[in-house]
């Protein structure tokens, strides 16, 4: 039983070979995930990618079809939800409508005495800045307040791992950005492992130490935001985290320093990355330099501007290249920008272009 709060740092969650099938549908497949103590991890992916199922497997609401879940060295795969030192904050918040805010938060504290329970509830209400809201009913609160009650209730038992399913999904944009900061600060202060499920890449980048990208039940790539952005494992990850130009080609050889030379429809191009054979270059729009005339250093690709969009801080251009493909280019707004129809030359530093295997 997890009725006595355990120091959060003791929690080290490990999923090994985890799988879940619903009939013929594979929701989660052969998934390995290890959480470092005190880590904030986001599971990112489109709806139906299995990220919520993974959360429900860890919480114990679903029984895995394969694999094990261990927490702090103990196998908890077969434990029912009420025996796991793991708590969940639900997307719908799932606050008990027939109980007050205080009773909601105290629900998980039945092991404590009356005074200790009251003290803990007061402490949690302060933590989420809802002092004095204890006697209120959940349906008298705003969405943001309900979200904080749900958070306080999920934290009440001092879980080793807190699972949050789209915790900010029901909030409007301004509140969401403010709450992201609070959630992050709270996690740092408590040192509890947080696993957040989200479909919003910006949210994942803002919150997490590490982001796990899921696609069709598989954990495609896990790493910090920068490594996912700079070195995506495949075109899905590359596209998920921001605008990207994808240039297919064939790896011909490698230079000193690890740069690969590729044969593409645009001629020979270079990029960083270990892939062999058929590959794809992922090139971010802001890495591309734009010039009216070919500059002296390095090869430049000729093209013609087909569209410009002024975005305030940047200008987004669409440029048609010699092979007919369109590249997206993002240029600082202060530069005198070429207009539609003008001829331009594009270049990029090859060490900022990432080579991915075509098949992944």
């Amino acid at each position, binding site marked *: 039983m997890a*009725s006595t709060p355990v120091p959060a740092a003791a929690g080290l969650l490990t999923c090994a070979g985890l799988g879940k099938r619903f009939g013929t549908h594979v929701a989660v497949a052969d998934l390995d995930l290890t959480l470092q103590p005190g880590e904030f991890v986001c599971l990112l992916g489109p709806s139906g990618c299995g990220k919520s199922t993974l959360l429900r497997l860890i919480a114990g609401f679903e029984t895995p079809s394969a694999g094990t879940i261990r927490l702090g060295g103990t196998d908890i795969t077969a434990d029912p939800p009420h025996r796991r030192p793991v708590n969940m904050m*639900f997307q719908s918040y799932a606050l008990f409508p027939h109980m007050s805010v205080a009773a909601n938060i105290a629900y*998980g504290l039945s092991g404590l005495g009356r005074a200790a329970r009251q003290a803990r509830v007061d402490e949690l209400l302060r933590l989420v800045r809802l002092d004095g809201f204890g006697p209120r009913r959940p349906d008298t609160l705003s969405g943001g307040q309900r979200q904080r009650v749900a958070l306080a209730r999920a934290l009440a038992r001092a879980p080793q791992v807190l699972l949050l399913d789209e915790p900010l999904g029901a909030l409007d944009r301004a509140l969401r950005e403010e709450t992201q900061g609070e959630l992050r600060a709270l996690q740092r202060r408590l040192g509890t492992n947080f696993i957040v499920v989200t479909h919003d890449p910006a949210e994942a980048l803002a919150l997490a130490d590490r982001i796990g990208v899921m696609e069709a039940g598989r954990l495609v790539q896990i790493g910090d935001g920068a490594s996912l952005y700079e070195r995506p494992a495949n075109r899905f990850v590359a596209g998920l985290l921001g605008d990207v130009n994808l240039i297919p080609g064939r790896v011909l050889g490698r230079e000193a320093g690890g740069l690969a030379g590729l044969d593409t429809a645009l001629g020979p191009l270079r990029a960083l990355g270990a892939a062999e054979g058929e590959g794809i270059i992922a090139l971010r729009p802001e890495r591309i330099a734009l010039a009216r005339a070919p500059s002296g250093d390095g090869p430049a690709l000729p093209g013609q501007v087909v569209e410009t969009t002024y975005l305030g801080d940047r200008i987004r251009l669409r440029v048609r290249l010699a092979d007919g493909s369109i590249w997206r280019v993002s240029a600082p707004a202060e530069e005198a920008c070429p207009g539609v129809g003008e001829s331009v030359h594009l270049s990029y530093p090859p060490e900022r272009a990432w080579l991915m295997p075509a098949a992944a």
Partner: protein
Amino acid sequence: MKRLLPVLPALWLAAFVLLPVILTLKISLSTPATAQPPYLPVLDWSAGIEGWGNFLEALDFTNFETLASDALYRDAAMSSVTLAAIATAILALIGTPIALAMARAPERWQPLLVALLIVPFWTSFLIRIYAWIAILKPEGLLSAGLMWLGLIAQPLEILNTQGAVLIGLTYAYLPFMVLPLYAVLAKRDPRLPEAAADLGAGPVRVFWSVTLPLARPGLAAGALLCFVPMVGEFIIPDLLGGSDTLMLGRVLWSEFFSNRDWPLASAVAILVLVLVVGPLILFREDETTAREGRR
């Protein structure tokens, strides 16, 4: 037009509920007579104000005094309320797990399950209760089945007892308990019991602290839908109950059709109405407090 809308149900209720109740009340204050209609006084419209005066003077509470003094009616009222209350309790005990199972079934099955619950209504109520006679009689299916299983040695003497009436009531009113319960359970957030389990509650605590309190409005509505008509039920006690099963519906029927004592039968009808208004008021108060509690 919008202003008229609330008037329409009011008119309907006045014409088909209030007026009949007033007429029944009037007859219950009359005296039986060998006449057409079989009671006195009859209002003489041609006598004007004086006719009204004579008419009102002739009304009295003799029938209600009879109801109060004759043990037959007291016993019938007691046993009607007791049987209806026991049947309601049994229905709640049986109906709650059925409604829960329906609400937890896969979503595509749920319309089918609701349909299965309603299918018996396609057969006449009378025929279905007759069928229970065939099941419950000593040489019937129940006794034969239990004897074949070796659970009893002698045929059960259950037909024409209060037990048979309870079985009949439970059978006939089950859908009225299950449907409102199911309606409440099906629309609740399925994450609520999960949240309770997540916070360390075992299955028993989840049921008592979350599932049952949330099902309460459905339970109250179902109990009302069953208890109220069961108090006045006639067919089930008449067909399945023995001569010792006195229920108000039966008493009313025999006063009206056998004794042709319309005034006393009307008094019994008013008594049933009064017995049933009590739970209705309780239900209203429960609804009101529940709503205020949410506010």
